[in-house]
């Protein structure tokens, strides 16, 4: 029986749930015996000149091995990617040199015999700062009165897309414009950033790192540290969540490696939560100006999205708003669409990918715009969507912003959700409450999203089969809790006809697989899955002549029976051989092994519709999420149980953006929501059960037919909830409220609309 498509429970769970997982800080390896502990000294100020650093007291403190500042570390700064418009003069030094550019930037580093001594000594490093004006808002950054990098001559790090000189709205009956803020968020994985590093005894290093991309980190560090290829091995043990925050190569890792080379002894490092809130990249952070125009019959004919994005203090990911430009058009067939993003540096934590990474911002903008348009023409938002969604005949669809959507049935997903929700019934109940003047008003919000998945379109892998038939797969994708070992072993088991228990999946060690892409952008199943699919095919191709020889049959008559995992000669059931026997016979004392590289020929596009039903207390502004219904089509599902898990977590994070979370700074660049007491991450107690419906439209672009599912929930959920809350109070005259829709904001909006 085929295993792919079944709800097989996760092979990872027993270990994870019984506390048997090994995160970096739990590693108890002999190589790490006697490791020193590293702690960074971080700037409490957003923008300042460093006038003096006195490390004498810290160096003299109990248990201190060494204290270093930028003056000691002879490693070049981390350059920005060449694709940036103005990135050349915006490199990031390993430790702040002369100037600090955000609260949380490291200015010195302490190495001590233990964790407590390191923390004590860090408090003894005396840094004198001469404050500079802090650039906090993107508007101030663009105005450029204060420059973060004077040599660059601008705060504008990157530009993408363009707006036309001609007016695309000239023939529209209705045009609506709105400023929208897509707020800054912190990823907040359970495990903070952490690493351990040892000399390998041959002049190189081994780095255990809580990362999503060990190979990229290896390549970046090797280059920055001037190591020879092969001198750095990066291993990610169990990783406790990442959400994008563990993609990048970080200067902190460079410093750790440098220290190990300097001291020749192993070190450990584990950030505190307070540090991670400031040092791990934040995400989103866009000011958007949306303009939507069309006819009173509900047809949208033109859409413009103008973005001013925050790159934070170092613009290494300032190209991310390009993804917002690509996806600006959303799930609709709008003839004229234009989008532009300008991304500026500010004295705040550097920005980077956070679950969705540029795509949620696009969908949030267009889904709000559709609702604003619907409100303006007095049409039901579901009807406006019905009228403008791309139809199944449209695929492959070339968007005005340069994407090629592959497959799907967008209107069907909308209808599926509306039917499950009893949409007309909900509207009737809403009308009843409005008429009664109930203080608990009902709101219904929709979001039809589409997202690009499978970025970083190449992946590597290797499969071996031993003499006892055990299969080991190595892939370049690297999980942080997603369950890759489960899904990949299901694919392999089906393809080779072996039980999944006989398959083990290895990832995240550059020492066992030289090339790999990592895990981000909803890429791992399509790429890692397609790699192992391809590898099993190659394994079978290689085995066929051997099986034919063993069975003394013609190759054309020999097949692998995928039910039993035995090679058979046609017409003679007695002539058969198991994988294990085949290995023993054809490779005495050895094993079968294939290594493959797989490239996704084209990007894939997952889509779906989410509906949120909320109750808004009009006296207090409090929002209660009552129901959440979603259809997510991510192509063929290898394991529906795990897909649901991804949707579940994603939707929770989308709801978190809509209602709860925001990383805020005061006008001096001091973070004011940098503890979990102020950042208000919701928990299970704040969320209803989700009603998850499915659709499966395979993509033509990979052998599995699978698209990505990791970010879909986050992308779809936030605008659905935002639209629902605004819908609940729209009869009072409210048209828009920015996320997060805190009770106070909702209360203020009602007050302003009704006064």
């Amino acid at each position, binding site marked *: 029986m085929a295993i792919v498509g079944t709800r097989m429970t996760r092979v990872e769970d027993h270990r994870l749930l019984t506390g048997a997982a090994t995160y970096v800080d739990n590693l108890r390896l002999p190589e790490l015996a006697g490791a020193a502990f590293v702690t960074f000294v971080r700037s409490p100020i957003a923008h300042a000149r460093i006038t003096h650093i006195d490390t004498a007291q810290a160096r003299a403190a109990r248990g201190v091995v060494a204290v270093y500042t930028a003056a000691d570390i002879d490693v070049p700064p981390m350059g920005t990617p060449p694709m940036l418009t103005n990135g050349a003069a915006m490199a990031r030094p390993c430790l702040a040199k002369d100037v600090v550019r955000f609260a949380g930037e490291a200015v010195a580093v302490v190495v001590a015999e233990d*964790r407590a001594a390191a923390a004590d000594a860090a408090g003894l490093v005396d840094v004198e700062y001469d404050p500079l004006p802090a650039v906090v808002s993107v508007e101030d950054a663009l105005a450029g009165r204060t420059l973060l990098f004077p040599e660059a001559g601008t705060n504008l790090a990157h530009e993408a897309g363009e707006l036309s000189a001609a007016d695309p709205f000239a023939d529209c009956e209705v045009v609506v414009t709105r400023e929208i803020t897509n707020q800054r968020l912190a990823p907040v994985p359970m495990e903070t950033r952490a690493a351990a590093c040892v000399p390998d005894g041959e002049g190189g290093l081994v780095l255990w790192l809580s990362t999503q991309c060990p190979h990229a980190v290896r390549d970046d560090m090797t280059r920055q540290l001037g190591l020879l290829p092969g001198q750095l091995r990066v291993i990610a043990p169990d990783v406790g969540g990442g959400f994008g925050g563990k993609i990048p190569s970080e200067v902190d890792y460079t410093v750790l490696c440098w220290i190990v080379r300097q001291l020749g002894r192993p070190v450990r490092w584990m950030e505190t939560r307070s540090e991670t809130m400031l040092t791990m990249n934040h995400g989103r952070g866009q000011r958007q100006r949306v303009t939507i125009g069309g006819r009173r019959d509900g047809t949208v004919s033109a859409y413009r999205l103008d973005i001013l994005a925050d790159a934070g203090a170092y613009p290494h990911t300032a190209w991310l708003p390009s993804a917002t430009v690509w996806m600006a058009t959303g799930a609709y067939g709008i003839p004229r669409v234009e989008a532009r993003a300008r991304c500026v540096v500010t004295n705040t934590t550097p920005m980077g990918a956070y679950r969705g990474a540029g795509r949620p911002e696009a969908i949030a903008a267009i889904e709000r715009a559709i609702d604003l348009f619907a409100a303006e023409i007095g049409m039901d938002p579901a009807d406006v969507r019905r009228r403008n969604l791309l139809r199944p005949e449209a695929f492959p669809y070339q968007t005005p912003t340069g994407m090629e959507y592959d497959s799907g049935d967008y209107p069907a997903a909308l209808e599926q959700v509306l039917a499950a929700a009893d949409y007309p019934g909900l509207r009737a109940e809403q009308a009843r409450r409005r008429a009664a003047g109930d203080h608990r008003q009902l709101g219904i919000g929709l979001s039809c999203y589409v997202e690009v998945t499978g970025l970083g379109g190449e992946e590597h892998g290797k499969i071996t089969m031993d003499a006892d038939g055990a299969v080991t797969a190595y892939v370049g994708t690297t999980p942080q809790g997603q369950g890759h070992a489960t899904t990949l072993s299901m694919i392999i088991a089906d393809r080779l006809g072996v039980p999944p228990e006989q398959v083990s999946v290895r990832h995240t060690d550059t020492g066992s697989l030289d090339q790999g892409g990592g895990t981000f952008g909803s890429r791992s199943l399509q790429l890692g899955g397609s790699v192992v699919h391809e590898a099993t095919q190659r394994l079978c191709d290689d085995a066929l002549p051997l099986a034919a020889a063993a069975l003394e049959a013609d190759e054309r008559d020999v097949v692998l029976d995928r039910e039993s995992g035995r090679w058979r000669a046609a017409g003679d059931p007695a002539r058969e051989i198991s994988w294990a026997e085949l290995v023993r016979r054809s490779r005495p004392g050895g094993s079968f092994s294939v290594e493959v590289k797989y490239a996704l020929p084209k990007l894939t596009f997952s889509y779906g519709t989410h509906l949120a039903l909320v109750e808004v207390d009009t006296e207090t502004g409090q929002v209660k999420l009552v129901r959440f219904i979603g259809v997510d089509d991510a192509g063929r599902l290898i394991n529906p149980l795990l897909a649901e898990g991804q949707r579940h977590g994603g939707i929770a994070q989308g709801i978190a953006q809509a209602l709860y979370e925001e990383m805020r700074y005061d006008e001096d660049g001091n973070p*004011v929501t940098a503890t979990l007491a102020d950042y*208000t991450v919701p928990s299970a107690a*704040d969320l209803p059960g989700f009603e998850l419906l499915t659709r499966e439209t395979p993509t033509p672009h990979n052998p599995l037919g699978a698209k990505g599912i990791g970010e879909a929930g986050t992308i779809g959920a936030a605008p659905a909830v935002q639209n629902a809350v605004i819908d609940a109070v729209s009869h009072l005259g409210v048209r828009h409220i920015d996320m997060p829709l805190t009770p106070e904001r909702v209360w203020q909006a009602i007050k302003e609309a009704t006064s």
Partner: protein
Amino acid sequence: MIPSAFDYARPSTVQEAVRILSEAGEDAKVLAGGQSLIPVLRLRLAAPSLLVDLGGIAELRGVSESGDELVIGAMTRHADILRDPLVARYAPLLAQATATVADRQVRHLGTIGGSLSHADPAGDLPSVSLALDAVMTIAGPAGERSVPASEFFVDYLTTAMQPGEVLVAVRVPKREGWGTHYEKFNRVAQAWALVGVAAAVRRENGSIAEARVALTNMGTTPLRATAVEQALAGALASADAIASAAASAAEGTSPSSDVSASAEYRTHLAKVLTRRAVAAAGGIDAA
């Protein structure tokens, strides 16, 4: 982060605790459940040289009756309060408020004495102790003294206790025949109150004979809403009477504007929540 180094003592009697504290002077701190103190130490906002852990003093944990009072030991955990039959019978308001404190893990470690001693205006139990006319039993070098809740909370995170003193018990007058309700308004289930209202109402024939109303997080200390109480005393038990009394809930308060809410919003919430709390306590439908 890791706290600065400190010494640790675990006495087994109150006398011993008081002696150790008096000898150590201002630099020592009492450790109860650690749910407020340990975060402060880990952020290095405080660095006491000595922690005196009350966890080994058996007599401090538990609820008993003494005449017309309940005596609640300072080290009684939030989770103990939630399943205590005496509290359920004579001071259900305390259990109602305690159920809203943080999460299960915190409630199994945090103590009533720690909550009151910490005197966080956003804490739920200080206002409840005020509404219930609780009296604190405090032990010090000079012996025991009693301080009513109305005099116990002096300022932000400050009580009438002196260095060297230990809160031993909270005494709560037994009340039967009162309706009570704690109305907490927070952003997520596990968060502190933006504003909270503790209400106790005694009805007599169709009217409200007496009411006790106290506010959480409407100033630097918990506050009694005296204007509301006065307006309610003898008022008709009706939605209108309650609404009009609740309109003065913010009188005499001085809420802060901070990252979670503005003073203006807190002032508004105090009125709405007071109306709802009193109505719920009095069993009156006030929508």
